[in-house]
């Protein structure tokens, strides 16, 4: 087979696939952050912990209750989202009149609590979660081998991202949401229950993180720290994309995953930091982010 810049195509394609999978997680997680930020104006630092909770919820459903992967894909995000709603009602809702940085500090504290509790009970070694039988195996595409589950992760994340984009940009509910982002007082005056919309939006954003966690469970081992470092990379993704646009968050997520995959092929030492370097470059030349609005 031909080689590209001295790299065998199997290696290149393998890393690109890996990049695309990482990108899927970046996209779903930064989408959740952007949805929450749009309406609540806070950065949800607990997003990584909630992603981890999604993976643990799937593992617990299987281990304690015997509920398999497919039901867990629906149930786990609902459970995590419901916990998010409780946290929003009990705590976050008290901070909306203050500087938004307090929301960041509060959710950072929540992330510490959640991660600490899981570490106490499950250690840090990680728990295995089997790939469901219907998605095991793989396809030989000729130029590379594609494990079925990894293909599914990409497909599932694209479906969820597109569905979220569709709801927010194309439906009446989404129109209310966008209106409330612009001017909550006016939307409330039209008789729409804005506080409830805020609560449900937070729950939805958290559920997205939980969904990503279930997707990740069979790929990465289920581990209390799995979200902690990931969320920082997702922050960088969000800074690069800018949180103004839903589609922007999605595209930036996938794009940066691919860039990271390419870096792993051509300059492996730089793969851990390439996203941060891109963030520095974006800050220099377009500080509001690739899809962000100025100001």
């Amino acid at each position: 087979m031909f080689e590209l810049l001295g790299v065998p195509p199997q290696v290149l394609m393998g890393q690109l696939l890996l990049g695309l999978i990482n990108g899927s997680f970046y996209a779903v997680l930064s989408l959740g952050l952007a949805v929450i930020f749009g309406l609540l104006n806070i950065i949800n630092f607990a997003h990584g912990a909630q992603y981890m909770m999604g993976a643990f919820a799937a593992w617990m459903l299987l281990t304690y209750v015997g509920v398999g992967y497919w039901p867990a894909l629906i149930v786990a995000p609902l459970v995590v989202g419901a916990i998010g709603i409780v946290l929003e009602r009990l705590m976050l809702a008290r901070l909306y009149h203050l500087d938004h940085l307090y929301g960041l500090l509060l959710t950072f504290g929540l992330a510490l609590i959640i991660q600490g509790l899981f570490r106490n009970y499950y250690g840090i070694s990680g728990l295995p979660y089997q790939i469901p039988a219907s998605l095991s195996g793989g396809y030989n595409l000729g130029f590379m081998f594609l494990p079925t589950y990894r293909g599914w992760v990409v497909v599932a994340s694209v479906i969820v991202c597109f569905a979220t984009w569709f709801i927010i940009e194309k439906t009446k509910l989404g129109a209310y949401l966008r209106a409330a982002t612009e001017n909550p007082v006016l939307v409330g005056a039209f008789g729409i229950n804005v506080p409830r919309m805020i609560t449900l939006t937070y729950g939805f954003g958290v559920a997205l993180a939980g969904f990503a966690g279930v997707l990740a469970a069979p790929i990465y081992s289920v581990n209390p720290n799995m979200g902690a470092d990931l969320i920082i990379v997702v922050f960088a993704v969000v800074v690069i994309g800018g949180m103004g646009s839903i589609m922007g968050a999605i595209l930036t997520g996938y794009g940066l995953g691919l860039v990271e995959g390419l870096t792993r092929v051509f300059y492996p030492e730089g793969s851990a930091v390439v996203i941060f370097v891109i963030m520095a470059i974006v800050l220099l030349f377009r500080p509001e982010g690739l899809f962000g609005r100025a100001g």
Partner: protein
Amino acid sequence: MAIAEDTVKTGPLRESIGMPRLHKVIFLVLLGLALLLPYGVYPVFAMKVMCFALFAYAFNLLLGFGGLLSFGHAAYFGGASYVAAHAAKVWGLTPELSILAGTVAAAFLGLVIGALSIRRQGIYFAMVTLAFAQMVYFFALQVPFTGGEDGIQSVPRGDLFGLISLRSNMALYYFVLAITFGGILLIYRIVHSPFGQVLKAIRENEPRAISLGYQVNRYKLIVFTLSAALAGLAGATKSQVFQLASLTDVHWAMSGEVVLMTLLGGMGTVFGPIVGAAVIVTMQNYLATFGAWVTVIQGAIFVISVLLFREGIVGVISKWLKRPL
């Protein structure tokens, strides 16, 4: 920036030039206590508290007075600790030169990261500083000179100015005390200088400060660099005390800890960071055997502080005494 809206406003300008008598008295009492402390508690523990107190002061300079929430101060604290440990161990420099090398490195790092980070405000600023700190962490994990997971171990303590041995804990204690106290007084001076007044103006109302003709970004960059340098001074000193520089000091959890110390003690107060650092370090010391519960408790303190207690310990006392502390 309204983050400090709950902090006590400092008095009229007259009061902020020269040190009010109350502050003088408290500083003298603290100094007296600190001089006697090593006879009562284990000196290494006392030095740890002082290093973190200076770290929290440096952070408070940026957050409490500059209104900038950096979530990546571990980069300067830990980065300086690596440089200082390397300087002492490999280059064989004396303690004061090693610490100076660490501080200068942190200042440079702060200048570069600060110049990029101040291009965004508020929440984005916090995320950007966190992301750059994570980059420094990965860098420390990969480059050979930091020793990766092992860190730089058994750093020699050496002789101060090549003359005075710092191998005994007592001698080192008074050296660390001098650095910490000097650093804290320097920060006090910065905050109460005309420069500090402009910083407060920017924090309270940035557009207004711009309209008054202040080069806001230049002020922000200077305070960011100063804060990074002083955080580096704390980290470099810590590496000499523990004879160790490790990944713990550059990890994001360390950035979170310094935020917690400042929040708990009282953002924008003069004595808050000392109190916050003392409480958190003592707590970690006593709860060390409980493992991950320490993280849970720290998280709980965060949540409680944000929900119920935004002025912090010193902020509450200050409100009660009706005097800025």
